[in-house]
């Protein structure tokens, strides 16, 4: 059994995070970015806030630099990075989908990988190409075998996605329960529950069969997956009615608006739950909260930058912007 690090072991990391939190963008900072005239003005404001590396970069490069800074900082401050695998494994499952599809379609995966995954995607690709499943980590081995055989037998890309997505949800749920930290458990639970809700709504809209819906969803603690599946077969209203009886009743309004409104609700909910971590002097909680806050910040800046590039109105973006951690 894996020995869990003691709570005090994160004292150094949390102390560094206390300083880093003072550099996070606030709601007021986002409002200034949103009010900026164009992309150049946004980039200038971000550079003034310490973003980038003092050189001129394109927006996507700046975001990549900031993402790298985040994970470099985490790697420097946390001894055992595997504690944070629950935040990254979904990148591995994405990379697995890419590998399976590229191998079966004989195409190159260049540019399709997601970085910051637990496993090196190239290694994943080589192992899968040579069918050496033993080279894959345990949590990817079975989904890889199943997805490869499904796609080779049926050429059904959607079935391949379904197998891998479900394996991802089940593994994240498992990671949440493996750890006794409340914050990690909550993050993993919300990850699985929100995925189930999205599957239910999309399935209701596209009139999927019950068997397909059941195969797609993963069990979690806050939803009755069987009831949700049956509601999805009935239609969108039935899904919303069922959700009204669960602890996600506050999300029903957002779901009625759009899927992106629901995603915003999930991120805002997570931010609200994480906020008390700002006062926690020890433990993994403040580290997890900081990573999530930084990812939300990057998401918000990406949205603002693409809005400026595409000349979208301020109000369109404002309703999509997440609440900030500070």
């Amino acid at each position: 059994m894996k020995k869990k690090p003691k709570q005090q072991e994160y004292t150094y990391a949390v102390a560094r995070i206390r300083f880093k939190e003072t550099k996070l963008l606030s709601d007021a900072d986002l409002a200034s970015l949103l009010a900026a005239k164009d992309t150049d003005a946004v980039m200038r404001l971000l550079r003034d806030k310490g973003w980038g590396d003092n050189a001129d970069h394109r927006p996507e490069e700046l975001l990549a630099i900031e993402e790298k800074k985040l994970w470099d900082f985490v790697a420097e401050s946390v001894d055992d990075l595997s504690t944070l695998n629950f935040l990254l494994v979904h990148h591995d499952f994405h990379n697995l989908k890419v590998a399976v599809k590229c191998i079966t379609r004989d195409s190159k995966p260049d540019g399709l990988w997601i970085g910051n995954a637990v496993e090196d995607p190239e290694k994943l690709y080589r192992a899968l190409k040579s069918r050496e499943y033993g080279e894959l980590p345990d949590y990817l081995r079975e989904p890889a075998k199943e997805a490869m055989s499904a796609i080779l037998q049926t050429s059904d890309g959607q079935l391949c996605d379904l197998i891998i997505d479900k394996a991802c949800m089940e593994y994240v749920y498992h990671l949440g329960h493996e750890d006794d930290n409340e914050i990690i458990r909550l993050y993993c639970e919300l990850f699985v529950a929100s995925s189930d809700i999205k599957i239910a709504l999309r399935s209701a809209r596209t009139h999927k069969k019950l068997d397909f819906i059941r195969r797609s969803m993963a069990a979690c603690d806050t939803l009755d997956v069987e009831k949700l599946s049956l509601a999805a077969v009935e239609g969108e209203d039935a899904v919303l009615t069922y959700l009204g009886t669960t602890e996600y009743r506050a999300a029903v309004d957002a779901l009625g608006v759009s899927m992106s409104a629901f995603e915003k609700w999930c991120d805002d909910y997570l931010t609200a739950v994480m906020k008390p971590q700002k006062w926690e002097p020890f433990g993994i909680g403040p580290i997890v909260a900081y990573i999530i806050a930084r990812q939300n910040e990057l998401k918000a800046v990406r949205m603002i930058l693409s809005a400026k590039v595409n000349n979208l109105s301020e109000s369109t973006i404002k309703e999509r912007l997440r609440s900030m951690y500070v």
Partner: protein
Amino acid sequence: MAEILNNSGLFFALLGAAFATFLAGIGSAIGVGKAGVAAAGVLSEQPDLFGKVLIFQLLPATQGIYGLLVGFLILSNVGLLGGGVEEISLLKGSLYFAASLPIAFAGYFSAVHQSKCSVAGIGTVVKKPDQMGKALILPAMVETYAILALLISILAVNGIHGIQV
């Protein structure tokens, strides 16, 4: 047998001195170490806060000094420092040992818990350097209990010195 019992008084007195120094010292070492780790984390981001975080790191160090003080008093009372060792009865030796317990245990636990408070205080100072005074008062409150224990230990050691048992 009676001779052995009479001589073992010195052993218990010495054990008391060792206990006070050893337990309170361990507590301080843990506390200073823990606060030091947090201070190092802050300094890696903001080196100009050195002076402020150093004060927080030193707060849990006092318990070790209190333990040392009580240890010195016991050693002095039994004559181990002056060179003229007194004959100490088993009962008197045991009393010295009992007198060392308040600072030994309260010193250990207060240092460990004060360090947690110091780490939290360091976090406060990083975010709001102007709140240094308030952030410092909170861990300093934990010190109260180490001081109370020190007081009892000193009074007891001095009291035992004067009694004939």
